[in-house]
């Protein structure tokens, strides 16, 4: 039986943040994730590092937390953050009276808002609608949710942290009203096991209610579903928020070469209700037109949906009515010692949430080491010498990308693979500039069990062709390295392409339709990965 001091449930931003914080303070900890890291909400949002402007009017506390954490994450997570800055733009459809209220509210919590002329805004962002009425600059930024999670884990591992993916919690073991362990099931093998521990922290997000229920405790988390669209263009270089009270479809976030438009909001019963539909996409496009008039002429990559874990002590508050603040629930008050849930909050404040929870846990464990997550970088910067070496093996643009994605340790390992077999510098995924060596490195990690896991670590398959070419290559490369994780390779093909399909299906028109005809032509028509293995003809 494995033993540890603290078990953290949930491999999203909050969970990995807690794991890192605990390990940095010298506390032994294991993190459990039911799927792959960042599978849940932390990868199913727009990737906006909030300045706080979005919350200032309605939730000053959340606004203040955002601007503070924004400043910290820009520094410690600089390889995950693109410092784009943001606009708040009021369109001709929006209430002028709100503008003044918003400026005032931002000022109150320390969010800088710099008014600029519409003319200047259009010069900086030429795709913006010329009909907009006023524009402010704010310190918004774009943040890569996958990378952030992954780099937190990489850092936690350096301090002894352990991570088990595809591990679902099926029981909380207690003795005399004190947590003594946790019962888990490996979702890939079905194997059930126990981990002895003194403390359990649930950072399960939308699933927090379900986890607490295992201990007979009621935690009121209402999953709220949001659908987003990823466009295959950098429509805007800055984040563009619509200057109006928070509503559907009013944020555009650029990431590398793409742009994400979000989001809708609807209460749902299940935390994993993440299948977007065509109607939501059409609605988002209709709303998005107010900021970018020719939104329909841009090629969409996919739609996706995630659930926000909205917490309310009041079981009747839902959707945008619920607070975006976070709460740490010490279930000692419910009669079970050694069990804490952290609920609510948002990606931007994950580090702060982790700090508060870790403070609480450390208090119980009598650990006095102070929190250092606000000052220590997630990954070390790549040294000039290593960058120079990387440039020998990667194309110029690819070297920077790979360095940011991998951190210096990962980069060293990938370079070593290329040195050993130079043809592995070839791009396995042309859309996202991912080399075969990088895919192999990600596949070899102990948390990888299928191609989608490799995708979340590398971005392979996330570009224009959505896996039309790199799915075949990644399965081939993984298999050639003896790493098909005990699965039939046809299962690997299908799992990955079905994952892409989930996001393509609701936007199946225009060029996306063309792309899909190609993808099906390759995998179903030519490679027959769906065909019967039984073939009487032979």
């Amino acid at each position, binding site marked *: 039986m494995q033993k540890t001091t603290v078990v953290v449930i949930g491999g999203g931003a909050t969970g990995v943040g807690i794991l890192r914080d605990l390990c940095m303070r010298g506390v032994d900890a294991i993190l459990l994730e039911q799927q792959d890291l960042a599978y849940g909400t932390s990868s199913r949002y727009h990737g906006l590092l909030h300045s706080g402007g979005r919350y200032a009017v309605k939730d000053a506390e959340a606004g203040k937390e955002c601007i503070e954490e924004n400043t910290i994450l820009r520094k410690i997570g600089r390889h995950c953050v693109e410092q784009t800055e943001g606009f708040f733009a009021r369109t001709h459809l929006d209430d002028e009276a709100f503008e003044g209220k918003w400026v005032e509210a931002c000022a109150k919590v320390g969010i800088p808002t710099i008014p600029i002329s519409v003319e200047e805004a259009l010069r900086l962002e030429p795709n913006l609608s010329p009909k907009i009425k006023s524009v402010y600059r704010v310190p918004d930024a774009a943040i890569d949710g996958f990378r952030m999670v992954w780099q937190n884990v990489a850092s936690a591992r350096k301090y002894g942290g352990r991570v088990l993916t595809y591990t679902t919690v099926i029981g909380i073991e207690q003795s005399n009203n004190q947590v003594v362990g946790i019962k888990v099931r490996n979702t890939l093998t079905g194997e059930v096991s126990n981990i002895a521990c003194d403390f359990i922290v649930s950072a399960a997000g939308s699933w927090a209610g379900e986890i607490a229920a295992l201990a007979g405790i009621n935690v009121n988390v209402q999953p709220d579903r949001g659908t987003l669209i990823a466009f295959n263009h950098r429509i805007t270089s800055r984040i563009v928020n619509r200057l109006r009270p928070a509503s559907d479809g009013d944020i555009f976030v650029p990431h590398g070469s793409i742009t994400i438009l979000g989001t809708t909001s609807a209460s749902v019963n299940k935390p994993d209700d993440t*299948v977007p*539909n*065509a*109607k939501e*996409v*059409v609605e988002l496009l209709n709303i998005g037109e107010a900021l970018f008039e020719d939104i329909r002429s841009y090629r969409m990559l996919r739609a996706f949906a995630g659930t926000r874990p909205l917490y309310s002590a009041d079981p009747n508050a839902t959707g945008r009515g619920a607070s975006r603040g976070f709460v740490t629930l010490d279930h000692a008050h419910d009669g079970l010692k050694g069990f804490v849930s952290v609920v609510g909050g948002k990606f931007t404040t994950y580090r702060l949430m982790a700090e508060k929870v870790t403070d609480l846990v450390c208090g119980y464990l009598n650990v006095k080491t102070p929190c250092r997550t606000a000052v220590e970088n997630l990954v070390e910067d790549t040294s000039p010498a290593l960058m120079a070496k990387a440039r020998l093996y990667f194309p110029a643009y690819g070297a920077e990308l790979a360095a940011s994605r991998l951190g210096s340790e990962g980069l060293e390992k990938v370079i070593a693979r290329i040195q050993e077999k*130079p*043809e592995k*510098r*070839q*791009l*396995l995924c*042309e859309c996202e500039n991912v080399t*075969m060596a990088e895919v192999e490195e990600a596949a070899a990690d102990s948390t990888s069990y299928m191609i989608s896991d490799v995708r979340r670590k590398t971005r392979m398959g996330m570009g224009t062709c959505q896996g039309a*070419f790199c799915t*075949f*290559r990644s*399965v*081939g*490369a993984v*298999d*050639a390295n003896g790493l098909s994780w005990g699965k*039939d*390779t*046809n299962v690997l*093909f*299908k799992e990955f*392409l*079905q994952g892409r*399909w989930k996001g393509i*299906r*609701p936007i*199946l*028109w*225009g060029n996306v*339709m*063309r792309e*899909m*005809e*190609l993808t*099906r*032509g*390759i*995998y*179903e*028509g*030519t*490679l*027959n*990965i*769906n*065909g*019967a*293995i*039984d*073939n*009487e*003809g*032979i």
Partner: protein
Amino acid sequence: MREYDIVVIGGGLAGLMAAAAATKRGKKVTLLSLGSGTLTIGGGIVDVMGYLEGGIPAATPSAGLLQVGEGHPYKKIGRPAIEESIRFFKEICEQEGYSYIGNLDKTQWIPTAAGTLKPTCLVPKTMDTTELKKADKVTVLGFDALKDFYPSLIAKNFKKIPAFAQKEYEVVMVDPKLSEGRDVTALDVARWLDTEEGLASCIEKMRNVIDSGSVVIIPPVLGTRPDYAVKEKLEKALGCHFIETASVPPSITGLRLRTMLVRYLKKNGVRIVEQAIVAKSIVEDGKCVAVITEGVDRERTYYAKSFILANGGFYGGGLLAEPGKVIEPIFNLPVEAPTDHELWANYSLFSSEAQPFAKLGLDVDEKMRPLDANGKVLLNNVYVAGRNLRGYDFSFEKSGNGVAIASGYQAAMSV
């Protein structure tokens, strides 16, 4: 004003076959081509009918033809014409020195690069599996740096196929030394083998890793030209049998087929206009008078007595999809599609069902003329062929190229 007998719109297999059949009938033909259609994607193999509804394999292509549903293009074309079209296609291949093997009465299960088998009807000789079936030992040969071919994937998966499980597999690699920092595709290797030095060098390298008498599975790299020179030279020098797999694009087998058909058409006096984007048509009294292309320079008008519309489906741009709506851009022909976009596609990408969106397309009569919702012929001198036809999902049923050949032929014979 030059008037042709027939203007064929589209340079994929359906268009090329339509043009070929039309010239055989002595017609004066112009072919407007915007590219190679899906021929260079996966087009070198002629599937006719592999799987029926429910994902059940058809016993033979011929049996499959008889079992298709009412709306299927094969139903419109009819079996005799399908048989004739296949015969005609094989005749052209034979005549051009790049013959295809197979017939409607036998399914050929050919190896794919994923290590599966796929059912098809006609294949070039480079994909003949006769020796593969007989062999006790099979060599799978890959090329270092070719990122689109993984021999171990094939060897391992063949072990799982009942009929292939008893064989012994060996994986060997040849380094073509083509990488030098850039990415290598099957086309690069095929071009290398096209040259005398490349071929000689490859033979030397192969001699070191394969034994004489071996049956060797390789990626489709046996030359880019529509002949069997590379295959024959390799086999003679090494005493081996080579079998190409069905692979991811670029499709070398498709490239060979296109090269051959274009050569045949040119020999037979077909005028081929490349980079022709047909933008609109002139229609008078239920007949098309001309189509108009938009190029980089100016509009051009092509007059003809008849027109064959073979410009592809969604992939080729012959059909355009919008939420809940499909548009045929040249003639604005009606396409029936569910207005609720959710009904266009199944939740599962791969299952035992065809995808509804793949079946969207133009409805035609038995002469391949476009019909309205009431079954009335809309344009008397326009004929439709290939992927823009409704009622079939080529990926699912494995009927790609079969429908193209049969419908292209039928359209040309109906003119």
